[in-house]
């Protein structure tokens, strides 16, 4: 059994840290793990995707259409963009935050409405939370990624809260540890 998770968002939102936390948590649990990231040009405000796969034996580091069990999204439009990568009935955990892409800023497109309903119609289960407000509540708007990881942790029942905390302790800089722990907690309870 392999669990396949896509972490999507807008370049600069912290998907690399989120994938690092999930990858490490899975590895500490004794799973084989593969994580695939994108660096370089697409990081500059573009749509970014990170794949995390864990299980007894993982071969491919990437996820195809119909291959994802979960999508964690830092931005609503990005969650919708990748919905066809989900298995039917797969779970989306998304921030309700909306960031206008350049075509919307340039006035050639509009930010779509009713995205949560559209994702549900497409066959996905959607768990949308206001991760940005919760992150601000924790002390930094940049901690949305950790809030969402907290929320997502509820779906991965075999990794305990203590195990997640341990990974956060070893992945984030000490001076931001308390803030990140709070962000994770707020995500769990959202």
């Amino acid at each position, binding site marked *: 059994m392999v669990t396949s998770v896509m972490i999507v968002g807008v370049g*600069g939102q912290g998907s690399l840290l989120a994938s690092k936390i999930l990858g490490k948590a899975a590895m500490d649990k004794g799973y084989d793990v593969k994580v695939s990231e994108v660096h*370089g*040009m*697409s990081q500059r405000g573009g749509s970014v995707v990170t794949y995390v796969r864990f299980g007894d034996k993982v*071969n491919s580091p990437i996820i195809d259409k119909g291959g994802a069990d979960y999508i964690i999204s830092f931005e609503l439009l990005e969650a919708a963009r990748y919905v066809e990568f989900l298995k*039917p009935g797969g779970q989306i955990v998304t921030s309700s935050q909306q960031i206008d892409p350049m075509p919307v800023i340039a*006035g050639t*497109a509009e930010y779509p409405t009713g995205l949560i309903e559209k*994702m549900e119609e*497409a066959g996905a289960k959607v768990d949308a939370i206001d991760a940005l407000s919760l992150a601000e509540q924790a002390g930094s708007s940049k901690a949305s990624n950790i809030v969402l990881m907290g929320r997502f942790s509820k779906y991965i029942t075999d990794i305990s809260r203590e195990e997640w905390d341990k990974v956060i302790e070893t992945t984030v800089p000490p001076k931001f540890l308390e803030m990140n722990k709070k962000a994770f907690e707020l995500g769990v309870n959202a």
Partner: protein
Amino acid sequence: MKELMLGNKAVARGLYEAGVCVASSYPGTPSTETTEEAAKFEEIYCEWAPNEKVAMETAYGASRAGKRSYCAMKHVGLNVAADPLFTISYTGVNAGMVILVADDPGMHSSQNEQDSRHYAIAAKMPMLEPSDSQEAKDFIKLAYDMSEQFDVPVLFKMCTRVAHSQSVVELGERTEVPVKEYVKDAGKYVMVPANAKKRHPIVEERTLKLIEFAETSPINRIEDGSDKSMGIITSSTSYQYVKEVFGDKYPVLKIGLINPLPVKKIKDFAASVDKLAVVEELDPIIENHCKALGLEVTGKDILPLIDEFSQGLIAKALGEPEAPSCKGIAGLPGRPPAMCAGCPHRGMFYVLSKNKITVLGDIGCYTLGATPPLCAIDTTECMGASISSLHGFNKALGASSEKNTVAVIGDSTFMHSGMTGLANIAYNQTNSTVIILDNSITGMTGHQQNPTTGFNLRGDPAGKIDLEALVRSMGINRVRVVDPYNLAEAEQAVKEELQAEEPSVIISRRPCALLKNVKRQPAIKVNPDRCKSCKACMKLGCPAISFKDGHAKVDATQCFGCKVCSELCKFGAFETMEGETIKW
């Protein structure tokens, strides 16, 4: 001990364990982290060279001197370093030398999709190709042993999905390798025709020995399968996709040494199965080798020559059922990459776009100046081409283009291969206007130092080339520095230099907004009562500005406080958070 490791970090770990002492590279996605991670080991001297040719020659020098050495580059970087590549294949090495080249199928961050395996064949060098992080580390160590055993630099081919994927790696210890004494040997090291003629047969004999090695080495391994109706030959990340789809169903010949390829091993494998398939990204290298051996094989007849593969793509091509999925949502707006909020390049591109100037572009973050709404850049090919092709453009069209055409190039790219183009302008004289977009860092690849920044790879103080002095010493008399946040100043400079009857260089200088030592200014906001909805500020294409409820709106989380937008507002609608109108 085990660690979840990026492929590129595993390469660096391999360098450490293999006793490598000197690494010289030029940054390029997806190869950059190999050298950055190697720099974390005190035992390895690591540097950023001005370009890949210099990096390769530096590494070669270290190998000849007797220490194991390394250089890394992206696929297009190997084009720059191709000159030494072909000749050091003749000279061979003293201590082991590895040249890493990282391909980018799918062009996540590249201008073309070339297949670097052709270089291994053309330069007659062995090339190894790992399929995950553990292999990346193990193959690096093998590469150094092979380099010394066969007296040849070894090419090491990565691709985006191996370089930028993390998988579990078992760590080992470093083995120190004694220095090999350098002995003068003109026949081996002085490649004048008489000596090179004697070296070429040695190269051909070496290839025969390498083929023998390929036949027996476990680096090319057969994994048995239960269903012999098909056998699959594959390598690199494609191997992982094949195993993902078929598990142990079909026998697999997994190639780790992509050049030279084995002969007997492939023939025997083909004979053991009913049908032979080759699964490889980009060009049919293994496939053509099989065909040359007279084998019937399926490959590029069912698999694409373009883009990267995935397990789904391979499954479909080989007749497996498609996985069911959620439905896609049509009609969503795209999200292409864009220049960051506060990016110093934006102001200069606004000026160029506003004045309808033809802009010959180059390689870096600033290539994003080609994207809407600014659409400022007309051309992009390769490192340095902006300047040299501007000279050609102006030679062809004369004054009519000289007064309306510029080259834009970053500080790092200028040091890489812009200088020679400028030398041509200074020497053969066109009234060309070159704009050096000096953001004081190599931006796109993730903030690497370069010869103009004053710091080395480790961030310690280093030699610093003064761009103004350099350009003047090359014979350019008109050199001026502008702040691209100041649109009026930038516009005046561009207009005046385009009119000048001699070559000129404008240095548009402001550090990248993402640099740690660059202080973010307080965000600004729009006073909706003053905003007349003219959308002049929207022309900048700043991701922090959007148009909501009939007015421009600044996203305070993204705003960098550069205030360039306020320069475009005729109505003084931009204010500080305290409500003070921003004046220029």
